[in-house]
């Protein structure tokens, strides 16, 4: 494409900017039900047209540094729309909806020269497709970032180690145990054991939906690591189905102490520490249960 033709299309846009902008806005209005304020959208569109025009003069390769401005602007828009919950196609429509107004304009300008019109239309299609795909890419990346952040949040939220009594820790597990989660669980449990000097840790798996061989292996690893540090582990909250699964799978829980409920595990832990829960004769003023 020669320099002359390049400047021609940007010339056309420059001359008809107002009309094009109006057409484009109307096009977007008809295509997407968006909740962006008209003024904001108008500003965005106008800025995009300007940036596009500047970049257009330098060539059609959108990967080149001259297109940095356009790409940055589009990335910003798709990121904002991605965060606002727009779908990828709604986001990409921002670019694609420019096609019809632009083509109409091109037809009006170059209508007499069929070859030129075809060439220019093809160039504009290529360009807008590239930019549209780019918005989709950024949109997807934004959503992926959100997912990754949520996963990280969940990982941190879902491994609380709580102190039940002197020297007794509990780790209520909720959700599926995979390798990365086990690592976090193991680390936080062991760290807490060191910090609190606890001798018994209860791992409660009431909230773990399924136990397969891998999960069992992860649990065993955690128990072994805790034992190496000098703390005993009790696994509690084993539901009947899970007990059946464990036996059917042939998982050897070895010397690990298992209890059906957290209550019985807690009782055992108290016994280990020479503690007991007593019923008092008369109501105690501050506490109902006294650990003696």
């Amino acid at each position, binding site marked *: 494409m020669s320099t002359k033709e390049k400047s021609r299309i940007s010339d056309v846009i420059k001359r008809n900017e107002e009309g094009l902008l109006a057409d484009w806005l109307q096009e977007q209005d008809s295509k997407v039900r968006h909740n962006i304020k008209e003024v904001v959208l108008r500003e965005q569109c106008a800025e995009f047209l300007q940036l596009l025009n500047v970049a257009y003069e330098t060539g059609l390769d959108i990967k080149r540094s001259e297109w940095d401005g356009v790409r940055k602007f589009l990335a910003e828009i798709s990121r904002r729309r991605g965060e606002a919950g727009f779908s990828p196609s709604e986001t990409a429509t921002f670019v694609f909806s420019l096609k019809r107004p632009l083509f109409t304009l091109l037809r009006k300008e170059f209508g007499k020269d069929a070859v030129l019109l075809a060439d220019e239309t093809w160039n504009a299609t290529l360009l807008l497709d590239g930019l549209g795909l780019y918005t989709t890419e950024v949109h997807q990346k934004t959503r992926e970032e959100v997912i990754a952040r949520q996963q990280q949040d969940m990982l941190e939220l879902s491994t609380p180690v709580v102190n039940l009594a002197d020297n007794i820790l509990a780790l209520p597990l909720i959700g599926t145990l995979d390798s990365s989660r086990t690592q976090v669980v193991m680390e936080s449990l062991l760290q807490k054991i060191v910090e609190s000097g606890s001798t018994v840790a209860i791992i409660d798996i009431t909230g773990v939906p399924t136990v397969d061989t891998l999960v069992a292996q992860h649990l065993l690893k955690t128990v072994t690591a805790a034992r*190496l540090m000098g*703390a005993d582990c009790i696994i509690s909250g084993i539901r009947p189905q899970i007990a059946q699964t464990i036996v059917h799978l042939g998982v050897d829980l070895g010397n690990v102490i298992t209890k059906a409920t957290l209550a019985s595990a807690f009782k055992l832990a108290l016994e280990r520490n020479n503690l007991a829960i007593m019923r008092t004769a008369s109501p105690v003023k501050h506490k109902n249960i006294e650990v003696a």
Partner: protein
Amino acid sequence: MERIPILRMGEFLLVTIQVDMHDRLAMTLQDDLTNKIQQTGASGVLIDISSLEIVDSFIGRMVANISAMSKVLDAETVVVGMQPAVAITLVELGLSLPGVRTALDVEKGMQLLRGALGAHEEEAQYAACEG
């Protein structure tokens, strides 16, 4: 040559590893400790590894071996103060150290030793009565 000190505390021996273990040091410790148990007739050994931050499979195996040897020489062994990172590493290496007694710190380790020895003595008395 660098050596790990072995301290005598009553009927127990106290080994505190305060430097990074390398292979030869571990071998020397193994020699020294078995000799010392034999000389002193100690009934319990307490190995404090709270300063140990790096382990490999060899050192892990040495710890297991040393406690097994002490047991053969009729001395109860407790490994105390293992760091979380070390525990995780050993488990990932597949070294769960079965048969090694562990405790969180020296104090709890001492308690465990005394408890274990008390049980032994009771057993011995029981055996004597039966005999």
